[in-house]
């Protein structure tokens, strides 16, 4: 049978299993009366990777909407990617719960600040947050940057700034973070690799 995954769902949605369709010799082009379609048949399928352990299982993310500019996607289902040669469609108890992590009630939605000594968060705009942080960074870098050490060797580092970089972000985000931190002169940086 020559059909893609989405067509397969459509055929299956007639209420038969894929294998029995094959056994009965139906081709996907056969006109079958549609009683009810699976939601997934109308969903957009996106290939991604489970972010938990280093098996890095391929996942298929199903979302509503078709990714057109004015449509909001909502993730409705995640399952293992059967094409991925490592996990071959499987997911473990961690990965099987991915949708609940994405939709956790603890997701952050806007920038916040906790002022010195305060006991609560305060919502602020991105501009205010970024402006304040950038000003803090520049003031500290200008005050503490070491151009040369005691022996007169050029060292050009910013010793009073530390950073931990995420191992859950992409290579591209990690690379940009490293490039930026080194560009600023930061040497106290680390990641989850050793923790």
């Amino acid at each position, binding site marked *: 049978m020559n059909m893609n995954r989405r067509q397969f769902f459509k055929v299956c949605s007639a209420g038969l299993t894929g294998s029995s369709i094959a056994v009965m010799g139906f081709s996907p082009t056969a006109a079958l009366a549609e009683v009810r379609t699976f939601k997934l048949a109308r969903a957009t399928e996106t*290939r991604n*990777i489970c972010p*938990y*352990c*280093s098996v*890095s299982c391929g996942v298929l*993310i199903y*979302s509503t909407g078709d990714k057109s500019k004015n449509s909001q*996607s909502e*993730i409705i289902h995640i399952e293992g990617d059967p094409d*991925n040669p490592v996990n071959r469609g*499987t997911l473990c*108890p*961690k*990965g099987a*719960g991915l949708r*609940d992590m*994405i939709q956790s009630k*603890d997701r*952050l*939605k806007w*920038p916040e*600040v*906790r002022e010195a*000594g305060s006991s609560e968060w305060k919502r602020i705009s*991105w501009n205010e*947050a*970024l402006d*304040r942080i*950038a000003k803090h960074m520049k003031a500290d*870098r200008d005050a503490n*940057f070491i*151009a040369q050490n005691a022996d007169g060797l050029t060292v*050009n580092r910013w010793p*009073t*700034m*530390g*950073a*931990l970089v*995420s191992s859950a972000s992409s290579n*591209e*985000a*990690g*690379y*940009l973070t*490293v*490039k*930026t931190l*080194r*560009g*600023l002169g*930061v*040497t*106290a*940086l*680390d990641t*989850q*690799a*050793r*923790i």
Partner: protein
Amino acid sequence: MTNHWVDIKNADLIFVMGGNPAEAHPCGFKWAIEAKKNRKAKLVVVDPRFNRTASVADYYAPIRPGSDIAFLGGVINYLVSHDKLQHEYVKAYTNAAFLIDEGYGFEDGIFSGYNEEKRNYDKSTWKYQMGEDGFAKVDETLQDPRCVFQLMKAHYARYTPEVVQQVCGTPKDAFLKVCEYIASTAAKDKVMTSLYALGWTEHSVGSQNIRCMAMIQLLLGNMGMAGGGIGALRGHANVQGITDMCAYSQNLPGYLSAPNETDKDRTSYLEKRTPKALRPNQMNFPQNFPKWFTSLCKAWYGNAATPENGFAFDWLPKLGGPGDTLAIFHAMFEGKINGFICQGFNPLSSVPNKKKVGDALARLKWMVVIDPLATDTSEFWKPHGEFNDVKPAEIPTEVFRLPATLFAENSGTFTNSGRVIQWRWKAADGPGDAKDDTEIIAALFLRLKAMYAKDGGAFPDPILNLTWAYTQPAKPSPEELLREINGKALADVVDPKDPTKVLVKAGEQLPSFAMLRDDGSTACGNWIYCGSWSQAGNNTARRDNSDPSGLGQTLNWGFAWPVNRRILYNRASADVAGKPWDAQRTVLKWTGTAWGGNDIPDMRPNAAPEENVMPFIMTPEGVGRLFSRELMAEGPLPEHYEPFESPLDNNPMHPNNPKAKSNPAARVYKGDMEAFGTAKDFPYVATTYRLVEHFHYWTKFSQINAIMQPEQFVELGEELAKEKGIKAGDKVKIRSNRGFIKAVAVVTKRIKTLDVDGKKVHTVGIPIHYGFKGATRPGFITNTLTPFVGDANTQTPEYKAFLVNIEKA
């Protein structure tokens, strides 16, 4: 991993020690089951707990946490004394025949050159004897008493089965049974793979645990073989990739050692890092270091990196000391760090000694948390009952919390444990105003750049000149970034043998790191990723999973670094003449004119076997190291040292030398040494571990995972439970010298009391996943208990072996 997940199916023996893949890497562990099912492979597990990997094993042996080197040293002794070696391999492909400096020695637990005050070694004697021809001297008969083989044999002769039982608590017959399994793979056509994870790394001797296995795999001829090698089962889905990008202090992307205060200029910096071959005819691939480094400088500083300014060498910050996580938090604790960016990281939970970490954060002027979730760290200042007992008014740290998108909400690559880089596509927008990490970093950088351009300030050059040629500067795309990481030709790259022949035209993406140059004509953000986005396009997005060899190599799926090679050191899968040791599992073979087979050769493609180019091309020797020269902090041969918190009064290997009780070269900060507890007050060994339902401190935010494993528990054996009057389900209090947690007691048969050095040792198992934030029941942070000391090489903390006491709460 030297090999990759699917390759586990090609093994004859899967040896799991220092890991529990059935629970921590379930979908990868499936390949161990496939090996058992399809090729009758055996699975052997050594672990303090009879865990779920052990439950499907052919054989299980218990061990005391922190005694792995004694066990593995015993294995080395068994292999050598029973002559269970792959002789041809050991002789040709390892440094067994190399002669060692006459000054090298080992006495009562301490190697030559120890400085007790500084807790480090002068390693000048840990080296080869050099001949007048400039190459290392060898004795191919392996009989010279100064050759590596004889030194190694003598070193491990002390690790008898009786000593293993005494130190590890592993019954002698169980130890010998494990040895028999391992020794069976010395045959040329039998292969063992080793799977390990944090159970080996998270010790003050973590790196040497792994060195032991590297030695064993070399002695058995299992490195480079399909179904062989060493499987470092890593943590996060992209911890391999972020390690490759070197988001840590001592290296620049692609494992290029970062400049430090001993590097005066570019020339001396390069000279120190560009080794000369130690044997004739070797590839000595790191001789290309200047090409990798110069191309990185060009990627970061573009036209501003010129031959005249040493390609902007001085703009790179020079390290002034260690910058690892423990060092960062210690500096913070001492008030030496003012500002801190915490991106997708929850250090209050994941760094040892939570009290110290919380106190350190409270001494910051400001902290920026960039995360998709409301982590415990972001609320270190907020009272959460007895789980986080703090007073906000006394904490002056200004804390910003910026919402980031997560994996499903952005595109880009992850690199799995088998080094396969795979593209991911964005499925949906993040919630609310969440932004991608790239956008947040860009926003901060562009603000700083604008301020430095307008107002000046401390040395603005490296900021003003950092390349930022992204189509939308405020939104660098993952496609643009991966192209930059891969690298391109800035001028025509020509064939060094025929300058009229243009290999890569100016402006084109580079096909491989073989094209990198040290004259500024190429730019490359990470040389080992070169080829991931070539002129042909995004190779990480390839999705052809066909497997013509049947070995599971899938060479057209994604892109593996380096150069799409799936099995590292694969030249060693064939004998000296180029014939595969096992034709059923051919990875590589000499075809008469070139290397061919089922992988990208880890060898110059036209290096004929008679040229004697040895397989370990990243070493200047060309061979694998049984003796690691000066490259490890605590010695060139692994030696057993006790954990810093040990149930024993001394190191049974060296009972009369207190200096050799615990790793003599491990860094211990003042205050942390004093915070170690003793067996008198804390008589039980504790080890932390992970559950199949949870991932680190992350899934506690997911409802379904919280339902499956809702609450902190600790696991203790029946004998200890009986002694303490603790029943299953009781609430217990576990104390170390650094604090306490409370948890539900699980009384099990899975952890046995062991007889160690004449005394009974009980072990308590403590899962790590809980905290005061998230969907799980609010609880304590396990790392309240753990000691602030790390491995002497990597500074990975000793989470896996420390001391506690336990009582009914």
